[in-house]
């Protein structure tokens, strides 16, 4: 069961909202599909991201996947550990495998996302 306090995109990103900061990563479903993650290409701090637009790329040995932002905002932090330890995406996708932190523009965008049950349904049908 995926964490119930998070919200999800249909492209397998999760978001945790804390005040006006959102932490974003990919789900363990995505990490399993990718296989061993070898590289995460993230934008610089200060860049704007747009809901449902791509903000980066996650690369495994045999696959590449675009990363889609669950919410719009400005990047305030990126996970520096992923540079040396991309495998964190596989081992702890909802924790140490987080990718970017964003200052949220419009909190209402959360309602466009799936909740845990909705995401579970999506992945069980996959």
């Amino acid at each position: 069961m995926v964490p119930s306090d998070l919200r999800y995109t249909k492209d397998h990103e999760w978001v945790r909202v804390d005040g006006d900061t959102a932490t974003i990563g990919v789900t363990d479903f995505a990490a399993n599909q990718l296989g061993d993650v070898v590289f995460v290409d993230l934008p610089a701090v200060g860049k704007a991201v747009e809901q449902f637009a791509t903000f980066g790329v996650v690369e495994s040995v045999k696959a590449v996947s675009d990363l889609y932002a669950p919410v719009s905002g400005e990047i305030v932090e990126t996970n520096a550990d992923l540079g040396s330890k991309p495998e964190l995406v596989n081992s702890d996708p909802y924790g140490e495998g987080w990718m970017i932190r964003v200052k949220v523009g419009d909190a209402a965008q959360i309602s466009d996302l799936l909740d845990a049950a909705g995401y579970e349904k999506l992945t069980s049908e996959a």
Partner: protein
Amino acid sequence: MAYGPHTPADRERMLAALGMDSVDELFADIPKPLRSGPLRLDPPEPEQLLMNRLAGLAARNKVDLASFLGAGAYRHFSPPLVDQILLRGEWYTAYTPYQPEVSQGTLQSIYEYESLIAELVGLDVVSASHYDGAAATAEAALMTCRATGRGRVLVSRAVHPHYREVLRTYFDGAGLGLEEIPLVADGDAAGTTDLAALERRLADAENPIAGVVLAQPNFYGLLEHMADASKLAHDAGALFVAVVEPVSLAVLAPPGAYAADIAAGEGQALGIPPQYGGPYLGILACTEPLVRQIPGRLVGMTADVDGRRAYVMTLQAREQHIRREKAASNICTNQTLLALAASLWLSALGPHGLRDVAALGAARASELEAALASVGVARAHAGAYLNEFAIRVPNAPAVHRELLGRGVLAGLVLADAVPDEPGLADALLVCATEVTTGDDIATFAREIGEVLGSPASREPVGVPA
């Protein structure tokens, strides 16, 4: 059939297993209107007759001339061990190492090639190969656009004309801008890139440049001020691409020494015969930060589950089979066997032998220059060169034709190769390598002396060749 094993009995057996009477049933899914008639080609040719035919065709080429032709493809001595190893079927009848466990030979040989070229060029990342020097240069130029996010590249007119044409084809395709930097026209630096013009162009902040491309030695054999050009490029936020001749790197400062970001070049000189154009070896190398931008295969070292050292294709997510329309390049099949040939040749010669080859070429070129001067034929440029240079020859196309009839392939007629380069209408581009003999040089000097000395040669030429 020549190589197929199937006897009529074999075919019957296979058809029986399919419950079919005729192989035509296997082609019933081709709609009748689309079925072609029989191929209108000659009948099969037994091997003995084929070999006669091929020998006859080969004999119609003339390759026993005293040749001074370089211009991007160079004759070098190749120790027999190179070809004897290349003829091992385990090397040349394997394909891309998709199953690394049974391809360690190919994989390690590519890793060694990457390492050898990295040493030569002074850059850490070397691709497993590209088609030729021109395609490698085009890929290098495209890399500068991807890496900087800028859409325009400057290329010196002293880069090989074929390479510039290929750059133009690739850049038109990608919708990117390409501009040429002119040559210095007169004086001691004539024939080299006009760095003042380069600086002026780079200063135009309205049209920022992604990359600057110079060759070393350049197409005219002259040595460029690569460090100065590199600095100009970097000061303007552009990347610097050096197009290099690998044998010369035994004695010339390599791209790493002048902070080039990317090196491209033609590896044919590394023991690969001229073969009328290919297959050749596109060399492409870059600094480590650019590793995710470099197209082509990369082989890296790793370990297997038992801890054995092993080699594998890596960073494959850059490539077309994974990234598809987002791949940096569409390259799939490359020139691996030629990379092996280069590794074999470099191993056979070693660093001393390689340096000797470069130095012998320089020595022969000095002799050539002196021999030609002694019959009144002077260089077209004053700058430093390694083993190739242009000479001033009145009615160059006619003289070249006449010399060919006398058994001398007097280099390249520049009026044909670079017709829009002013001041080179009467010039030939000549080179010497370690295989150029003193006799060749004496013959060339004697014959050209005669041809130019005769009254007929002083008449203006009519229609060019």
